């Protein structure tokens, strides 16, 4: 394992950014989100959760797919180039790394999403273990270890002003090679990191949502859950905004639209869509989810029933808790799961 003093991180970021693009948590106008590192960027590694998840790095909120340009009497189609430069995402948490796994199972299967695949090929994930997880976290419920983001290319821990660095994959080793001059090998680091892991896991045990039970939620309960009268009540405070879906690391639905850029042609782009929106999956025949109840139900059924049905039981929630923090009406997946439990208990 390697280490670097926290005050030398700027040098580390400079070194990485000199060779490839570097995304990391940056504070802008009071809010921390993943952004491109620049000399002036206010890097913020203390905020546990960025407002938006880092999924933008692989699946941006909006991206042009191709542009149609009128060329005399012909129409020229210019596809957008695929990502062909390497980049690093630094500071992803364990839950967010798991979120990428959820996206992989959607975009990297047949038919392959080439835009996403190119970004996955060129991106290296450097994860940062959680130091002080919060009451809105429930990653453990979905098998994520806040103390050890082992699914990343590089795992790091910040302990007492030192960042510990452990490469986990070939990509991680390659990145480590490029910054080796700034890192210091430390044979006693394992012990320090193990102690930190134990302490974080102790905190995790004390958090209120970490023991949430998912009993009754799996890919086989489709009709039973779909028709449950509880949805008639649960959706009521929902404002039908898209906050939960847009801050979520696993929501992957998108819409494809055209933007008439005038003389510059027509850009066909895709952008995140939200099942909370009235025109979600609107087709020529109309809309198949006419009420907010149906739209609200869709989100939770997708996370806890449909996705597991198609992915060997894997849920498409990673317990990051962003929806818990951001829903304007204080609704969230935890409340939904608990409401069904409560109902089960009373029957």
């Amino acid at each position, binding site marked *: 394992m390697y280490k670097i003093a926290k005050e030398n991180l700027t040098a580390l970021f400079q070194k990485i950014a000199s060779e490839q693009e570097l995304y990391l948590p940056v504070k802008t106008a009071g809010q921390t*989100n993943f952004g491109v590192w620049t000399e002036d960027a206010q890097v913020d590694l203390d905020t546990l959760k960025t407002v938006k998840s880092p999924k933008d790095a692989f699946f941006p909120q909006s991206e042009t797919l191709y542009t149609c340009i009128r060329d005399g009497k012909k129409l020229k189609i210019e596809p957008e180039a695929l990502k062909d430069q390497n980049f690093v995402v630094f500071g992803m948490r364990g839950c967010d790394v798991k979120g990428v796994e959820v996206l992989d199972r959607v975009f990297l299967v047949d038919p392959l999403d080439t835009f996403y695949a190119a970004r996955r090929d060129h991106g290296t994930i450097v994860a940062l273990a959680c130091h002080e997880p919060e009451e809105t976290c429930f990653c453990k419920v979905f098998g994520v270890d806040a103390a050890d983001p082992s699914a990343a290319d590089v795992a790091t821990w910040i302990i007492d002003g030192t960042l510990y660095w452990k490469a986990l994959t070939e990509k991680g080793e390659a990145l480590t090679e490029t910054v080796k001059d700034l890192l210091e090998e430390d044979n006693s680091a394992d012990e320090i990191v193990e102690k930190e892991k134990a302490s974080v896991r102790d905190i995790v045990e004390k958090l*209120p949502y970490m023991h949430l039970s998912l009993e009754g939620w799996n890919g086989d309960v489709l009709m039973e859950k779909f028709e449950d009268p509880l949805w008639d009540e649960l959706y009521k405070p929902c*404002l039908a*905004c898209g906050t939960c879906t*847009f801050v979520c690391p696993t929501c992957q639905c998108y*819409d494809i639209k055209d933007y008439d850029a005038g003389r510059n042609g027509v850009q066909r782009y895709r952008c995140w869509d939200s099942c909370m929106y009235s*025109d979600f999956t609107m087709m020529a025949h109309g809309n198949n989810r006419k009420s907010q109840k149906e739209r609200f139900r869709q989100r939770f059924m997708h996370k806890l029933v449909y996705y597991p049905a198609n992915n060997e039981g894997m849920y498409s929630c990673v317990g990051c808790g962003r929806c818990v923090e951001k829903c*304007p*009406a204080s609704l969230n997946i935890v409340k939904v799961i608990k409401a069904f439990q409560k109902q089960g208990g009373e029957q």
Partner: protein
Amino acid sequence: MQEFVKATSQAGASSHLATAGQRESQTRVINRAKELLADGTVARVLGWKAGDLPYNPEPAYFEKEEDFADFVYNGFCGANLSKYMIEASKLEGKTLVCLKPCDTYSFQELMKEHRVDRDKAYIIGVGCKGKLDIEKIKAMGIKGIQSISGAELEDEAETLTIQTIYGEKTCAYKDAMLERCHVCKGKDHMIFDEIIGESKETKDADRFTEVEKIEAMSPEEKFAFFQKELSKCIRCNACRNVCPACSCRKCVFDSNKFDSAQKANVDSFEEKMFHIIRAFHVAGRCTDCGECSRVCPQGIPLHLFNRKFIKDIDELYGEYQAGADLEPRTPLTDYRFEDAEPGIVAERG
């Protein structure tokens, strides 16, 4: 988990005296609501249901006596319930709705626009001593929150005591208040059937100070300021959907009949279109309830747009507060010879 809730609520109660009086007005609201449900005056009650964390109550309907076990009214009930009355007005029977003083401005404005039915509402004006902003509490570095005491309406405490897994923390109630409460419009309910609970004056700042700061900026500075703030926008529409003045049946930004439907968060669009059009559309009708800024996941100070319009209306047409009355002629819907000419904008700069 249920044990956790129980344990923390006990901790909250024991660390504070006067448990009997502490939640008195909450109890009075509950008792009155039960009475009105029982005698058939109302068919349902619209209030807040306790959350599973100390700070996340949700708007909720209560129809049966046993539902009230979860009824809560405390400092975290910032949500303005007046907009929910648009849907409730379509239901059979009256809905008892709990409105804070500032919420009643929104309700009255919605009445003026014929979006809610006064005859379908039984309004209990609930007291308010300023509502709390969990984002402000978290910004102070307070995390791992287990319980919060001092947030009850009757509690005279000036301080919130917050138990966290990282130790006990305190913060001044005032420092944890929503921005809108620092420029509170006052303790009076504009419309109600009855009032339960005392309200407290929380105003300690001028409503237009921030607007004046922006007015004093150069055009380049203004542009940079709004670009920085608005480029955080994720197009979640939370500001629009929570806004009582945004009550169009079909928003132009949701319509697929025009090129106006937009979901992409493209900077050039955000800055030039969505927020500015929205601000124009609610000008003269916005009561400054502050819900847009409360719900914005990116902390964009959206109220500043609306306040600029309010300030201009005050200056050009005389002081006006939307929702303060039911007078149908309002500054922007009434036309008089002495009205300001559009050219004033060019003259003023």
